[in-house]
């Protein structure tokens, strides 16, 4: 066990865990941030996506020991009142079915729009291809990303 200082959603946190513990389980088991989901544990499904210094990454593959000095943003910190343009578009298009994968989808989508505010269909598909939705909400996810893109550009 060892102590690690993390910056999560703009707040400094200290956790005392095994250095190999992935960020996913630090968030869920130790920091009470359960919005980041466990889906596969091998970076194949995207349910655990967070922003690592602004980029979308799979938190199940990020050992806590590699995080000192970096800024982590989770779904809980994406906006103060759930009103990030991507979240608003998700509500407007009413994207979720079961909802379990959606936090990961939203984190991937918001990172995409941060780097590419007006993505093409192909760019959306490429950026989102690592996020599985078993319910099959892909059409709505794409529509919501386009709606968020428009609202940001406008």
């Amino acid at each position, binding site marked *: *066990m060892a102590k690690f200082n993390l910056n999560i959603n703009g707040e400094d946190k200290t956790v005392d*865990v*095994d250095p*190999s*513990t*992935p960020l996913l*389980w630090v968030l*869920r*088991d*130790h920091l*009470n*941030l*359960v*919005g*980041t*989901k*466990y*889906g*596969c*544990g*091998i970076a*194949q*499904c995207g*349910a655990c996506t967070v922003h690592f210094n602004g980029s979308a990454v799979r938190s199940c593959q990020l050992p806590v020991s590699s995080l000192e000095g970096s800024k982590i943003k*989770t*779904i*809980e910190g*994406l*906006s103060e009142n*759930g009103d990030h343009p991507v*979240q608003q578009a*998700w*509500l407007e298009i*009413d*994207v*979720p*079915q*079961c*909802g*379990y*994968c*959606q*936090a990961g989808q*939203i984190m991937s989508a918001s990172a995409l729009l941060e780097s590419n505010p007006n993505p093409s269909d192909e760019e*959306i*598909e*490429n950026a*989102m*291809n690592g*996020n*599985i*939705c*078993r*319910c*099959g*909400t*892909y*059409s*709505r996810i*794409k529509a919501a990303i386009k709606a968020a893109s428009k609202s940001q550009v406008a």
Partner: protein
Amino acid sequence: MTKKSTTVNRRSFIKSVGIAGGGLLIGFNWLACKRSEEVAVADAALEMPDEWFELNGYLKIGDNGVVTIYSPNPEIGQNVKTSMPMMVAEELDVDWNNVIVEQAPLNTELYSRQLAGGSQSIRQGWEPLRRAGATARYMLLEAAAKQLEVPVEDLSVEDGVISHSGSDKTISYGEIAKAAAEIEIPEEDKVVLKSKNDFKIIGSSRKNVDAKKIVTGQPLFGLDTYKEGMLTAMIVHPPKFGMEFKSMDAEKVKEMPGIKDVFTIDTYPEDTQKQWSDVSAFSKLVVVLGESTWQVMQAKKALEVEWDLNPELTKKIEILEKSAGMGEVSGLESSATHTSLMADVGSKKAKAIRKDGDPEAAFKNAARVIERSYTCPFLAHNCMEPMNFFANVTADKAELLGPIQTPEYAEKTIQSRLGLDLENIDIQMTRMGGGFGRRLYGNFLVEAAVISQKAGAPVKLVYSREDDMTDGVYRPAYHVKYRAALDANNKITAFHVNAGGIKESPLFANRFPAGAIDNYLAESWTVDSNISIGAFRAPRSNFIAGAEQSFLDELAEEIGQDPIQFRLDLLKKAKENPVGENNDYDAARFAGVLEMVRDKSGWKKDDQNLNRGISAYYCHNSYVAQILDLRVKNNEPIIDKVVCAVDCGIVVNPDAAKNMVEGGTIDGIGHALYSKISFEDGMPQQSNYDTYRLIRHKEAPKSIEIYFAENGIDPTGLGEPPFPPVIGALANALYKATGKRFYDQPYISGLQGDLKT
């Protein structure tokens, strides 16, 4: 706040609603003043009332007019948590923006059929949910009439405000709720349900009541449960079907950081009274218990367990195989053996389930017989939220919280397994990260309870993805052979379906084209196995629809007919002059969706510009027809468009219903194209998403158009019906694109190779 008691068990109320007028006195403010933690409407800024008044088991009204509606059924993503309360709110006549929705706990006395399965929630809730709303409205009006001293006939309601027609007197639901709670529950015949033409909420799109929580990452799911003093448990099950626990060396693992204990459990000892929902291939499990998930995962990896062939299982299967004459299945089964065994058994005569006319003679006299066989592999459900459950079992009580589609059955199993009285078992349902049938089978709930009892601590059981995917309860592997007899004029004179699977048959003997062909034979068989199976979204239909619709497509081509007109002609016969009496479909509604999809898609016979496949199917009381357009590029299909025509009667929540059809369509395409679980010597060959392929963003259709029949018929299922037919549309479109018929799922295997692009 006062709490008034009643001599009548108010839990019996809903039964009185459902069965007969109760005339029960209800009149106390249950949960009064409790602040709701489940504010679920889009407008979370609703002010909580000081006092709640429960009018019946489905709803309570606050003194400020805010209404809480309890959604009785489990939510697995089919959106019943929104649409079921909409049905209550419709008859209650309240402003939907004033409604809070809460998931009801399991309560078999209050609610009937608290189950997510068979696409039945809306269909079977249609009457009782509206009646619950209408009964409460009746009581509110009675109370208002008393207070205003006017005849109740002169009162009307809009958005929770009661108005008197002869004056400008008004009174809100919030103001009269307390008095209404003391009104006698009316006899059923006094409560009149609305005319469908007067619906304001039903038929208008309302957004998912949990959406805000979902998009902001609030705790909603079973896996999000964290309680004081809770330990995390994981299981280790045998790596192969047909094996069982022999021994383990756990001493070193027990010393690992955070690990509390390692022990074995027997989930279902012989004296357990099991329910149909208790399906599990592995009763004896190793349990690792610890403080945090990662620590337990690490300990699991370090644990050395020895497994043995399960002699009982092997023996039992051999006996079954011999007695059923189904050939041999060894203790450790392999997919290659399964495939040849099914082809062998499927080539033989099997048990006739339905026979019309004289099919043997018709086949004998046929000018031509067309015969094709179709197969599909086992599938894992792959709910994105892995199986999990929270349990806190003490000497006299069990508290259970988590994702379960069948809480009522789970409660009975827990009663038997733990020896507790039903009233001391509390099951609460969380929103589920997918169900698809997997969570009908509550073995993980029972495991959690047994672990908690043994550990003497509150425990959350968590399956890893690998545990989840290799634990069984799979969609069965199926095989079907179709034969059609044609006369010299290319007229179909007989139809034969011979269907089976491991270890369930996909046959629906009374489903189309039964009823449309004079000489018809349906045969069914099964092969036993030690691999556990279960219902998977649209059980049996999820295979047989695609096979049947592929065969009909090939038949239409052989006969030289347009595939839609071919089906319509058969349906015309089934409607005007049906064969047999047990046909389970309505031929006119069936034809209706085919005509609708033909018109909406701009279908042209022999269209050379598009690779279009058509399919139509009836299941779960609903009719769906789909036309799918695709191209093939680099051996991968690109699906440009799917047009869907759906007849599920009245559509309660149209935009959410479209979401369901989009999802079912994508899910059906994905599983038929990409997914399989295969076995070598009992070992599943896929255990995570690096080896098990699920459909992804790039592979989803570029566009999905959905049209609903508008016929005012009471609503029927929607969670499952869009899934099965699209598989046929996909196979038929793949044929157009490649010139090659697709008989074996997953179709991607057949696509690798000779194609035109």
